[in-house]
């Protein structure tokens, strides 16, 4: 077990390194000139060239790449934002809280709600409950997150005035962003739970449990759910990733000062260090959650740990 975790953590480090190279290269081919964005539109060509030299943007690809990797991984410094002139890492630490709060709350609620709906649907197959759950979840996966967010703002913030439309002032400000993030995820988890639950319900061990007179509730919670959750667990990891990605959009709509909106502004400004930093942090959070979930997976599924220990 320890060996498995160690192996995965080492692999995580390799991934982070590789992601940095990928992001750096993408920022290298991106069209546009940060020097021109920093200086005003009518800056002279000499000024622009001088600034490009100062930022090291005129160096060849390899020189810039090595310098970036050395800075990031040996000095733990992602650089200074071209736009705000502040260290990217400090700026991201100020903002990551919002992004992670929205992503984790919506992942958590989506998981709990989705599993509940999925179980209800599966245990009442073909009933009205099942049909409503299927139909609702189909609607929810088909809905553009940003459109749903806009509709929520338009109804609950602008028309009814119940919740703030923009920014983060109190816990109330989190309600609309989280709801718009979690609908799609809930629907996904519900669909997944339903289908894996339906697969389990037909297994022989359920018939055995029924035969020995076990109550329906206990058959569901103790036997069927436990086994059908295993494929669902793997979905939760990618759900968290979807929520991180979705938070980019939702932060834009609700003007939340998180990493996502930071990154989008940085892209517009050709602020390379800020974009790299944002993507890198998102990738690290995502990979860490996936790793965590894989470890939970191993702990939960005795078949897997058995196989691993035998190796």
């Amino acid at each position, binding site marked *: 077990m320890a060996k498995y975790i160690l192996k995965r953590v080492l*692999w995580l480090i390799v*991934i*982070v390194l*590789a*992601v940095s190279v*990928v*992001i750096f290269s*993408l*920022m290298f*081919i*991106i*069209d546009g000139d940060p020097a021109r964005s920093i200086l005003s539109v009518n800056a002279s060509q000499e000024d622009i060239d001088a600034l490009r030299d100062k930022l090291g943007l005129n160096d060849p690809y390899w020189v810039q790449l090595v310098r970036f990797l050395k800075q990031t991984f040996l000095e733990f410094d992602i650089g200074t934002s071209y736009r705000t002139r502040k260290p990217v890492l400090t700026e991201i630490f100020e903002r990551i809280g919002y992004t992670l709060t929205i992503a984790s709350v919506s992942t958590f609620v989506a998981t709990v709600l989705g599993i509940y709906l999925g179980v209800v649907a599966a245990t009442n197959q073909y009933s009205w409950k099942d049909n409503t759950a299927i139909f609702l979840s*189909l*609607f929810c*996966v*088909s*809905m*553009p*997150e*940003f*459109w749903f967010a*806009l*509709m929520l*703002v*338009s109804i609950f913030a*602008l028309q009814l005035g119940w919740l703030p439309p923009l920014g983060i002032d109190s816990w109330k400000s989190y309600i609309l962003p989280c709801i718009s993030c979690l609908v799609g995820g809930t629907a996904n988890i519900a669909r997944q739970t339903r*289908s894996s639950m*339906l*697969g389990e319900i*037909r297994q022989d061990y359920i018939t055995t449990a029924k035969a020995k007179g076990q109550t329906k509730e206990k058959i569901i919670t103790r036997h069927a759910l436990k086994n059908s959750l295993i494929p669902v667990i793997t979905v939760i990891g990618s759900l968290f*990733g*979807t929520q*991180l*990605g*979705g938070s*980019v*959009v939702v932060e*834009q709509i609700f003007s939340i000062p998180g990493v996502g909106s930071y*990154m*989008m502004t940085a*892209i517009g400004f050709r602020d390379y260090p800020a*974009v790299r930093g944002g*993507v890198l942090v*998102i*990738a690290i959070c*995502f*990979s860490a959650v*996936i790793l965590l979930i894989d470890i939970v997976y191993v702990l939960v599924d005795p078949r897997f740990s058995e196989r691993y220990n035998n190796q």
Partner: protein
Amino acid sequence: MKTSIGNRRKKTNFSEILRRLSKNKLAMIGLVVIICLFLMAIFANLIIPYDYSKQDYSAVLQKPSREHLFGTDELGRDVFSRVVYGTRYSLRMGLLTVAVAAVLGTLLGSFAGFYGGAVDNILMRILDIFQSIPILVFAIILAAALGPGLNNAIIAMGVSTMPLYARLIRASIMQEEGNEYVEAAKAINASDMRILFRHVLPNAISPMIIHITMSIGYSILVASTLSFLGLGAQPPTPEWGAILSEGRNHMRDHGYLLFYPGMMIMISVLSFNLLGDGLRDALDPRLKGN
């Protein structure tokens, strides 16, 4: 003789799947809506009452009425015409994205699955790297790097969703590989490429077909998101996401500017999902019934 038997088997199998699919009401509704959407895209020019880009400053921000079914936007353009014409762009983005992703994914996945060992290891680790960035974030960065525009957004989305296809095809190729027909093909000294593309791949492709149908809807979603963020279709192109992005400024008093394009996105994604679900059930009857 041999081919005729082969053909007959194939046909009965196919018609059986079609029969099962046609019994699924929801899937059929999805199919009908999809056909309508395609007709709408093809005959957009005949349907739209106004030119989608014609500005009319005497009719700015009008509420839906008989003349303008979905109202007019801030430049006095007819939203109904824009939304109908936008079907072309949104469908094109959805379909082409899936095509790019499916081709790339199938190539990568089949090589990985077929050769196994070091090739497989290297390719899969590369996919791991791609997948450690959330799909939407990766698509945004790629689209930004390539520069905004319809085609670049399609490439960006195709590349960022490609790992899903690659893993899927790899898994089903690995399952096929133990079969006797592969051994037989090897025994008659067929080349690797011939075995892979003529024998193994056609047998391993069916999970891919389900995934493709399900992914068209998802691709339309991501495409509209990219356009909404300003990285996909550029104004004045009437792509649905782009229309939403333009209408956003008037959200407070002119909600209809947002409602209709959003509904169109949802209806088209929903129909592809319904068809995809139906196709999955038809191809994999184990999941259906008691």
